[in-house]
């Protein structure tokens, strides 16, 4: 009987439970929002392994999220690589350590700047896009229409997007890292004679798996939270068209904040295992 009840339509929870009423309203809202987001994430894990699998939609979303974000990611990464090199060079020259420039820049980009900056750009572009799209689908009853058509809208809309961001953001980070290093090479070359082979030889000589692997692993988590928050905010959009803007806005703010928090946690874990 219990099982049957769970599978039928049940009312969604509303607001904080009564035993939290002694807390200030802001704290109650924060806890409620955190709880609802966790429940949303839990529903994702519950749905992701169960058929039917929406492969076609995942591929379409991966194209939209990955391919369409590449120009922005590439441009930003290229500029970051160049600027970081141009800004670091004078200091290294002062200490006679100019030869360490490729090593310093590559470690900075691969370990930290690449994953964090690219994820923040994606939180802005992709997170807001998902928040606004789902918010507008909610307001115009497209999600209800999907449900009436016998489609599980959570699976079709939410699961496919979260999977796509989780897969595509690490790929964008890897590509962005490569482009940033190329930007760095051009900046070094502009200031002195260095060959492409020599620059990248120095880069790879100073990089090892403990630099690359944690960075890629944390990018998966960044991708997951960007998709999760974008979908959560859009799917629970309220107050009509005004709510669509609010969903997009808060998706960017919360996802960006979570990227920083996850990065902090990742650094602690990496240090714990002795990779710093």
């Amino acid at each position, binding site marked *: 009987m219990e099982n049957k009840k769970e599978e*039928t*339509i049940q009312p969604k929870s*509303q607001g904080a439970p009564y035993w939290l009423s002694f807390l200030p309203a802001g704290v109650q809202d924060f806890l409620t929002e955190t709880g609802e987001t966790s429940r949303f994430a839990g529903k994702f894990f519950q749905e992701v392994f169960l058929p039917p699998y929406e492969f076609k939609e995942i591929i379409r979303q991966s194209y939209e999220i990955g391919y369409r974000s590449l120009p922005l990611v590439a441009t930003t990464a290229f500029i970051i690589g160049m600027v970081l090199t141009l800004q670091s060079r004078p200091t290294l020259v002062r200490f006679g350590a100019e030869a360490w420039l490729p090593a310093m820049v590559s470690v900075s980009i691969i370990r930290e700047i690449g994953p964090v900056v690219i994820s923040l750009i994606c939180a802005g572009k992709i997170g807001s896009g998902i928040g606004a799209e789902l918010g507008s689908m909610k307001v*115009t009853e*497209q999600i209800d229409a*999907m449900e*009436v058509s*016998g489609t599980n809208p959570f699976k079709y809309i939410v699961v496919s997007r979260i999977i796509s961001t989780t897969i595509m953001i690490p790929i964008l980070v890897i590509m962005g890292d490569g482009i940033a290093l190329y930007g760095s090479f051009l900046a070094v070359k502009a200031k002195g004679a260095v060959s492409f082979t020599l620059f990248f030889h120095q880069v790879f000589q100073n990089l090892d798996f403990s630099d690359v692997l944690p960075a890629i692993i944390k990018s998966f988590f960044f991708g997951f939270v960007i998709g999760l928050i974008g979908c959560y905010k859009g799917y629970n959009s309220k107050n009509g068209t005004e709510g669509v803007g609010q969903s997009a806005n808060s998706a960017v703010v919360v996802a960006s904040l979570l990227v920083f928090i996850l990065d902090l946690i990742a650094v602690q874990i990496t240090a714990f295992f002795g990779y710093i």
Partner: protein
Amino acid sequence: MSDTINTAQAVKQNIHEFGESIIEISHLQKSFGDNHVLTDFNLHIRRGENVVVLGKSGCGKSVLIKCIAGLLPYEGGSLKVFGKEIKDLKHKELDNMRASIGFVFQSSALYDSMTVRENLEFPLRRQKHGKSKQEVKKLIEETLENVGLLSAINLMPAELSGGMRKRIGLARSLVLEPELMLYDEPTTGLDPFTAREISRLMLDMQHKYNTSSIIISHDMQCAKLTANRLAVMMDGINYAQGTYQELSQLNDPKIHAFFENL
């Protein structure tokens, strides 16, 4: 607990003209927090019957059909569609039942990222896996031809006018050949001429596809044209039901005021 005013003609029609009951709503209750939208709503609909539910904006008409489609949970009473209690259905059973229900949304709810063809293809792909590509193509073209918009097959929803969107929304619901149609304010936001066209189209489609319908509206012209029976929703209950003629002549101050103001 209030009783519904049933006119004599409504009772007679209900028993003699139409088939078995396909929707049975008894003492339905639905609230949003302290806002009690449906307090004690009763309505029975028989096969082949068109019932228009009239009521002021915000009185809970859309909530009622969303409960019927299983989009909103209800707290009390009974709501049986095709003899099955909605709140006891598992998701899979509900999805199977929805294959027999067409829902035309107030905003048309066309999928913005899909063409008209893809909008019609979507429910077909989801509900009728047995059809070949050729059969699906033929069915989509036939349905669009029925609503007079075959030429719009490759257009995006953003390129359609309000009336065209309503027609495509109707076609998308009809493509599954449902037994029951639920219309949520089908003529809202349309000019009187287009509203009348849509009302006629709904009636034509009802004859062609042999459906029963619940039409939520506050458009009296649409109600006059399409309804076998009207139900007036007030204060969360089915306050009165009958034909347009009977209700407009009913000696009840509330109904009188309602008909005068619409």
